[in-house]
């Protein structure tokens, strides 16, 4: 009887893990499909779109995930097929230095001006 109790607990725990893992995988799937652009739509992600292209791509993402590819590898895979513009999260490479750094630069500039305003004052 004691063993039965342990078996039941083990079963429940493993089930919990399983559903948690499932949920995690769906979350990851959603994250990836939200980051892929639907190429035949005008401004929608694969996640949002219900077009044929998007539906096929969703199936493919699921397949690749089950094959064990990592998120990064999946992005590389699609980038290879369709070019960089299928990714909504712009990569950080020589094309996009200004894209990512210019706002930060502006922020620091603003901060510097404010800083100067008050430090000079104090002196």
């Amino acid at each position, binding site marked *: 009887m004691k063993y039965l109790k342990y078996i039941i607990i083990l079963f429940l725990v493993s089930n919990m893990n399983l*559903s948690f893992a499932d949920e995690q995988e769906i979350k990851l799937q*959603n994250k990836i499909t*939200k*980051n892929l*652009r639907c190429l035949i739509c*005008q*401004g*929608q*992600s694969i*996640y*949002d*779109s*219900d077009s*044929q292209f998007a*539906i096929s791509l*969703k199936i493919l993402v699921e397949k690749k995930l089950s094959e064990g590819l990592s998120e990064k590898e999946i992005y590389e895979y699609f980038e290879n097929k369709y*070019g*960089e*513009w*299928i*990714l*909504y*999260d*712009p990569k950080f490479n020589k*094309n*996009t230095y*200004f*894209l*990512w750094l*210019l*706002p*930060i630069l*502006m*922020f620091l500039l*603003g*901060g510097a001006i*404010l800083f100067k*305003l*008050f430090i*000079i*004052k104090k002196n």
Partner: protein
Amino acid sequence: MASLIGLYSLFFGLFSSFLIIFFSIKNLRNFLNFDSKILSLTFLQFFFVVVSFLGLIISFINSDFSNETVYNHSHSTKPLFYKISGTWGNHEGSLLLWLLVLTLFLFLFLLKSKEQNKKYRILTLFFQQIIIIGFFIFLLKTSNPFSYIFPTPAEGLGLNPILQDPALAIHPPILYLGYVGSSIIFSSTLAAATLNKINKEWATHIKKWVLLSWIFLTLGILLGSIWAYYELGWGGFWFWDPVENVSLMPWLALTTLLHCLLVLEKRFLLTSWVVILSISTFTLSMCGTFLVRSGILNSVHTFANDPERGLFILIFLFSLIFLSLFIFFFFHKFENKNMNQLFWLSKETSILVNNWFMMYFLTVVLIGTVYPIFLEVISSEKISVGPPFYHKLIIPFLIPFLFMMAIGPKLKWIKSDLLIKKRLIVLFLISFLLSLLLVINLNIDILINSILLTFAFYLFFISLRDFFIKKKLSLSQNFAHFGFSLLILSILFNNILSKEIITNLKVGEIYKSEKFEINFKNIGQAEKKNFKEIIGKFYIKDSEGNIEILNPGLRIYNQPNIVTSEADIKVNLFEDKFITMNYVPNQDYFNIRYQIKPFMIWIWFSVLLITFGGIISVFKKKYEN
């Protein structure tokens, strides 16, 4: 006939501009008071544009297909309401709407500024007329809404069914009242800068116009999001699409301007900020018009993809920019930067910090939107800039921003003492503990979201408490800030708690998961005026056994030949149940997407609260007077 009257009315309207300018110059030169003829002429001009606009509406109602615009965008089987709203749902008609708002605001401004200096009023009129004439020429030369086609086609090409929706019908007029309304702020600021009139009294005078424009712009953006949510079927309400960004940017500039005016009203500070922001708001509006009408960007709702029109707007826009730069550098007298005027712990400083953050957010949105264009021109590489970019750059900065929103209003003008009030700390602790509780219970695994939650709650509690305790309270500011905290909280919860199921179902099939059961009961058909609809009936059972019936549809329109998916959404106070049904080619099953979206109503409501704050501010002055 209506089109003909409409066309002639446009010419008369343009001609009025020259009359107006003539009499204005005359009035400027003589020493008499403001010539009331000028006011009448601006009303006349507005009247001509109204007649023209009505001419277009009547052409649409009558389905007069000899009018090219009506032919391109309407159809005789369209319901009357959408025939009318189709007037401004296209490029030419929307430009006519631009003219309508431009001339209306000029007239109203002159009407309501009788106590102001004559020179100032006339100069404002000049600058506004430059914009108005520019648009008249743009309209008549490249985007004539009254273009005649012969022979008259028997039927029109129809309006895209996605645009046949009540929210989208009123979204442009409301948005334009904000967007285009900022033109008068632009013109009057340039006038004031030229006359060196940027001071406290002027700030009070211009503030109501800024508020008016801001209120409509906020509502317009809200309506656009609501439309996207209900109509586009993906359950989202903001996608950082270029057209959305293009309405957000003027809003950011306008909000910052509003805060700067609050400072200028009390003290002679931030005058340069005020001038730059006024110019920027309208410039961004026009820049937005350029981006979505020239075909240079690729987005969900770009209007006309016509490079010729794009070129005109581009030149017009940059002419205005160079004009503004000239006036700013030539005329504007930078206030004496007496350093002793700004103490570091004061309300003025907190508003300066606010400016800093808002300008940063504006930069992020601006760069994100136009960078792909620049990159493509310079290096022929094509990239996409989507939500992940904006989220990464904006969300972390929201955290200190929310903190400043909570603390800033508490600081005094000129100088505040460093007495750290106990309640500020207590409320922070409460926010922190509450967030911790939620993080643990809801399995929130993203750190940033958890911290954001804490600070959003902080602003929430502080502003909530202020409603009940504070005596000398600025109601408008409190509503607005409280609304903002509620917005962030609603969006966070919506994001964290949303659930979704996508599956393929045949009629009669049931999908079972541990939390839901979706039963595809049956299918029905309906014939409407301009479409045929297939309606699915779905019984959704949740884990507690409650059943909800949802009826998504597929609409097959006849003209144009498009199939749209109509979501069925059951709204209640705590969550929306959202279902869409999609056609799968050549198969006998449908693709079903069921989503649970918590707190959607709260998102809309919080924006209304923010707007309400602005409305209170408009009427507060009236009440005090």
